[in-house]
């Protein structure tokens, strides 16, 4: 290869790097999703629909009506989530408050993913954790710091119990964790409904199913005065660090990942697959229990039927978006927290239904999971040095051949073991991204 060739190649690889980079893809995915959401808002706007009747005579009316509807909604979303003209950065604190349980529960889903388990049960684990934690919060009266500690501990214990049941049953009988977690979610919901109607939990003088408020001593202290942002957010960051250490530096984390990638190989290597399954589910449940503590000792401070909201289910999307890595989950949780905080403001000030946020969130995950689609939308394939959108088979083939380097570089789960990689849910986006980067660089050498 001549030196000239090499220079050309290096120059090409710079644009390739930009066009093929994960960050750019993520940004573009978010952009496309916001645009689609904006179009939805515009098309369903009444002024827009009325001006459609004379669209061909004066299209500017329809277009401006649509633009105004969409931009007003997004401005309200931004003002509710990040920066408001009235309260400055207070909305950002609200975003972080909303993100706290999402990050915690998301970490739980992510840990299970890495161990090859698809944990749909964060919702149930969160609910049971909340039942445990709330009871300690309002029924026991302890000194300040100790009380909070006990509440958090019990919430984590409750979550770990509910998650542990799944791991235990799966390890013992081989029952499918997807069924077990779905069923335990429903059981937890009914259990919550039942305990709220027992004298032990029902608030005195109240007929609606709601518990007494937890003691002041059992709540996370507020860390930014004038907002709802509480110490739980710091706990969430600590948990992210702890999970990073657990998954990437500890023996247990290595075993969990090994079992997730290839149970047969892990067994051959002398690891106990059953123990790993149980521990992964118990840890996942414990993390959902932390999320419960963020609700019980943080934002809600009371046990009611809606205590878990949809956090347990959103956590799945958060973990998927975060590609099952601790920091990825953290930022995905922040993003979703921002959407939650902003959506409330958007609904109040512009009347746009909150559900648009679900649409945007899910589109983001879909697009991020399929970079070739986003690239072809922006015509970046040519820039990235790919002649045509990489065909699926090419991408996967390259992923398989380059599995080792990817694994080293990203501490990502191994690919190319088809079945096990596929079985371990959250691994695939990483796998996909890896496949992508490789197609880019391979394309450049041609």
């Amino acid at each position, binding site marked *: 290869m001549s030196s000239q060739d090499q220079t050309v190649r290096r120059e090409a690889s710079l644009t390739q790097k930009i066009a093929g980079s994960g960050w750019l893809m993520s940004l573009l995915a978010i952009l496309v999703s916001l645009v689609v959401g904006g179009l*939805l808002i515009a098309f*369903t706007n*009444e002024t827009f629909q009325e001006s459609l009747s004379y669209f061909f005579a004066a299209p500017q009316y329809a277009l401006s009506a649509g633009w105004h509807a969409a931009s007003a909604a997004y401005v309200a979303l931004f003002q509710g989530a990040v920066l408001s003209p009235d309260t400055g950065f207070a909305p950002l604190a609200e975003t972080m408050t909303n993100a706290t349980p999402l990050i915690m529960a998301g970490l739980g889903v992510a840990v299970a993913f890495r161990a090859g388990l*698809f944990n*749909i049960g964060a919702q149930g684990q969160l609910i049971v954790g909340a039942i445990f934690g709330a009871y300690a919060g309002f029924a026991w009266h302890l000194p300040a710091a100790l009380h909070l500690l006990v509440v958090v501990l019990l919430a984590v214990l409750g979550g770990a119990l509910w998650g542990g049941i799944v791991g235990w*049953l799966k390890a*013992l*009988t*081989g*029952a*499918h964790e*997807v*069924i*077990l977690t*779905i*069923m*335990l979610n*429903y*059981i937890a919901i*009914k*259990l919550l*409904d*039942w305990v709220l*109607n027992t004298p032990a939990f029902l608030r005195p003088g109240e007929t609606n199913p709601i518990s007494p408020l937890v003691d002041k001593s059992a709540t996370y202290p507020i860390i930014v005065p004038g907002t709802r942002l509480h110490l739980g957010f710091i706990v969430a960051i600590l948990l992210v660090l702890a999970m990073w250490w657990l998954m990437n530096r500890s023996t247990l984390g290595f075993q969990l990942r090994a079992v997730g990638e290839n149970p047969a190989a892990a067994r051959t290597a002398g690891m106990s697959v059953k123990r790993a399954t149980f521990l992964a589910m118990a840890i996942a449940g414990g993390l959902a229990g932390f999320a419960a503590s963020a609700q019980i000792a943080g934002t809600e401070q009371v046990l009611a039927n809606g205590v878990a909201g949809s956090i347990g289910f959103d956590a*799945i*999307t958060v973990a*998927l978006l975060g590609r099952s890595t601790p920091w990825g989950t953290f930022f995905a949780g922040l993003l979703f927290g921002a959407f939650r905080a902003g959506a409330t403001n958007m609904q109040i000030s512009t009347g*746009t*239904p*909150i*559900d*648009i*946020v*679900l*649409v*945007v*969130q*899910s589109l983001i*995950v*879909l697009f991020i*999971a*399929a970079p*070739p*689609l986003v690239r072809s939308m922006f015509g970046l394939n040519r820039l990235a040095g790919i002649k045509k959108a990489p065909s*699926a*088979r090419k*991408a*996967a*083939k390259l992923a398989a051949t380059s599995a080792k380097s990817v694994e080293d570089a990203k501490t990502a789960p191994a690919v190319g073991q*088809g*079945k096990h990689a*596929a079985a371990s*849910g*959250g*691994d*695939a*986006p990483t*796998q*996909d991204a890896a*496949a992508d980067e490789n197609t880019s660089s391979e394309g450049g050498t041609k």
Partner: protein
Amino acid sequence: MSAPATTTPSTLPSLVGRPVSFKTTIVLGLLAVLAFVFFGALGSDNSATLRLATDGDLFALPALVLPGRITGIVVGFLLLAIAGISFALARRGEKLPAWAVVVFGVLFVLGFLAWAVSGGDTPSISLTGLLKGALTLGIPLIFGTLSGVLGERSGVVNIAIEGQLLGGAFSAALMGTITGNAYLGLISAAVAGALVSMVLAVFAIKYLVNQIIVGVVLNVLVSGLTGFLFGQVMTANPEAFNQPPRLDRLPIPFLSQIPIIGPIFFQQTIIGYLLYVAVIGVWYALGHTRWGLRTRAVGEHPKAADTLGVKVNSLRFWNVTLGGAIAGIGGAYFTLEAVEMFTKDMSGGRGFIALAALILGRWNPIGAALAALLFGFADNLAVVLSIVGTPVPSQFLEMLPYIVTIFAVAGLVGKSRGPAASGEPYVKE
């Protein structure tokens, strides 16, 4: 034959015979003791009346009157006997035949019914009504689970059943109202379900995105999309967008008048009859046609199928799409049969129950449909018993199907093995 092959026959019987599993025995034994103690020893002295006759029967059947405690004791003994047989068989390394498990289940339910109804304030229920409601509540579940069967048997995990049901329900309500015709609404529901499926198929097959991820995300997407349109369009103007006509009941002459069977099976709307067609059709086609053989091959060993000239990815795509259309019809049940309007998230997690039924039914169309029916039965049982007014808190009755499922999955089904290539994208080399 080579040496290993000749040695296999001699070692095989002992290998199969050795692992003695008492799992089933333990579960059955526990349930039998529970039945004996609660339904028998602690049962009520009242009698439970189970009515069988309905209006319009050819001839009226007398009601079944079961004395609470005695029924409980008899059922308890029978159940203990089955558990005992299971124990004896397990010691010899044999498994209890499947029909015995079914008999066990039916007896247990009968004992439970006698106990729960006899302890109620008005100890009388219509058994025919209970079963009829079970089938009705099972309709979306069965359609949903068939969608799962079609996807997974051809190698694509279909977690998006919930989204397909919800999309179908929404589309049926919207198009049914706009056109004023319930049947057009039904067709549009199938189209909507198929569209949701196509997104799943494109992302899973073309872009190789993990199928579980696409499924989960699609559920959220459909929930958000229908919720948004419901809030933005439907609530503002329900007369124009959210008042679909109801599908007519089409009783089949004569058949619908047979006691018990008639009211349950032959007084359905078109959705109910489509259900029979779908279950039998999918079962027959999967097991007995060229298409079915190819589908199963693609789900178990795509490479082998490809070698023999089957277009793996295109077959997967169309099977998943067909599944979505079937689930969409199931979704139409919500808005064209159950209630004449769409509400936010009205499928209420039934897509996930359908998924559980799929695994419980071991990926077999008939098995999955029966499992879905079991959930429908349990759902309806909770409704019926809450009317009767049993001493058990209603939450526990509602919990029952889920607990039973866990028992069934952990104790009876055990390590369930899906189609080998399910969840694996196929990449031609």
